[in-house]
């Protein structure tokens, strides 16, 4: 596991190859308050060319290869570029420089990815499944499984209520259950599991294991070092947009913990 490179005798099949990826955001109205009409006016009159757009260099030249059957944890302090990197792997945020190569279409599961709040959980399950490209029969077959897995109905008939009435934990659980219903080549999970209760976290860990067994690759962003070491065999440590360490989860987490304690 120490040498992650693809040597000629290597049988491992890569699923995600991130090749020197840089991501730069342009943020509109970062400095000048959007709500302030006077500042907007003065911007119009004084700085005709470009209003206060700022560039944020969130990921600075990250390279790694991920292989089939791996579960990879992403750790690092807040704002180190973990979520941005996941979005790039998912193909939602095109890199400014470098390229992300993937096998199939990675699916990103984020915390704030609200599905349709006005619709019932039931409808969200069907719509989410259809959007992922499942057929109506496949959804019918797995519907009970999805609802049972989410545990939404354990405390009453919540699945027939609009999703906006759910607590954030319930919403996250249902979203994870919908996304996990389909086997993905690459599944990216952005702190989605931290909102669930202990029981749900255990269930989702089992589900992640199954997904890996189905020859997929799972990425997990989490601030819980425990869930990284329990779920993942490999970890990437990002700090200020650069990759600081890439190796077995236990070693990387230990180094990261030493680093955070030092500060």
């Amino acid at each position, binding site marked *: 596991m120490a040498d992650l490179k693809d040597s000629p005798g290597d049988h491992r099949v890569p699923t995600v190859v991130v090749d020197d990826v840089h991501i730069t955001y342009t943020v509109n109205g970062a400095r000048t308050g959007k709500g302030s009409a006077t500042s907007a006016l003065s911007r119009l009159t004084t700085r005709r060319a470009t209003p206060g757009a700022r560039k944020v260099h969130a990921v600075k030249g990250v390279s790694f290869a991920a292989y089939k059957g791996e579960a990879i944890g992403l750790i690092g302090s807040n704002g180190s570029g973990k979520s941005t990197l996941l979005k*790039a792997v998912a193909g*939602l945020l095109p890199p400014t420089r470098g390229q992300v190569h993937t096998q199939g279409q990675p699916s990103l599961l984020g915390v704030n990815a609200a599905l349709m709040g*006005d619709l019932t959980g039931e409808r969200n399950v069907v719509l989410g499944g259809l959007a992922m490209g499942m057929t109506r029969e496949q959804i019918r077959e797995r519907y009970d499984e999805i609802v049972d897995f989410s545990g939404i109905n354990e405390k009453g008939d919540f699945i027939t209520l609009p999703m906006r009435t759910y607590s954030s934990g319930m919403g996250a659980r249902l979203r994870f259950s919908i996304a996990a219903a389909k086997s993905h080549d690459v599944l990216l999970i952005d702190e989605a599991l931290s909102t669930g209760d202990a029981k749900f976290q255990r269930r989702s860990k089992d589900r992640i294991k199954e997904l890996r067994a189905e020859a997929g690759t799972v990425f997990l962003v989490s601030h819980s070092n425990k869930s990284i070491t329990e779920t993942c065999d490999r970890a990437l440590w990002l700090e200020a947009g650069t990759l600081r*360490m890439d190796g077995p989860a236990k070693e990387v987490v230990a180094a990261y913990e030493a680093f955070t304690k030092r500060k």
Partner: protein
Amino acid sequence: MSTPAQDVPTYAPGELAALAARHGLTVSGARPSLPAYIRQLWGRRHFIAAFATAKLTAQYSQAKLGQIWQIVTPLLNATVYYFIFGVLMDTRRGVEDFVPFLVTGVFIWTFTSSSITAGTRAISGNIGLVRALHFPRASLPVALALQQLQQLLFSMGALVLILLVFGQYPRPAWLLAIPALALQALFNTGLSMVMARLTARTPDIAQLTPFVLRTWMYSSGVMWSLDHLLSGDRVPHAVLVALEYNPAAIYINLMRYALIDSYSGLPAHVWAAALGWAVLCGVAGFVYFWKAEETYGRG
């Protein structure tokens, strides 16, 4: 902040790209070719239909009267316009069957205007879905345009009632409403996709849309007859022609021609113009939307 070399594997330039190429990986987030995109979209047709229906029923889910509003809302709209434009401003003078004329105009106009308004929110209003799941993004504006079509079919039910009350009885010409609606739906979908891309990039456009729509409505003869209003030499002939060939006026006229007995004088080239606008907007809007496919999750 220098990275210790032994903690991160190093790769020679081009090594990773070669590894990816050897195993046939594809570049993530790359835009599919147009034919592939159309195939993907077709593969999501059940999603589009389900999404449209779900949105339609969710619309009044918080109202006590529920789905009754589907029919009541357009009727109330027509009533308001009847009092303001028909009675107070007296635009009904010289227009036969003014109520069917007005209601047809309002409903057909609403179909186009609400499709455009829905288009401005197609991406921004569903950003959670866009960021969570992968599907061709055109599904969203298409689904919202379909939702407006379903909504219109409810309104058409109300319209038939009004027509019967005001002495318009079913005749074969009513069947012309079907191709007219199909063309208008294609036109609306194209425009909705253009708006979806524009507002995904520049949200400010959603603020401007209502003003553009209102101007468009008043110049399309929704509540009055353009012919009557602009007769005489007050406006140059070219302006009158431009107003009558604007797509909203064309689709409204087609529908009035199909449904109202006394409404005549529709030259054959109006159908050609309706077809032209539909194909032009439908195709151009789709291609324009597809060109930015990979960027919609941003922001």
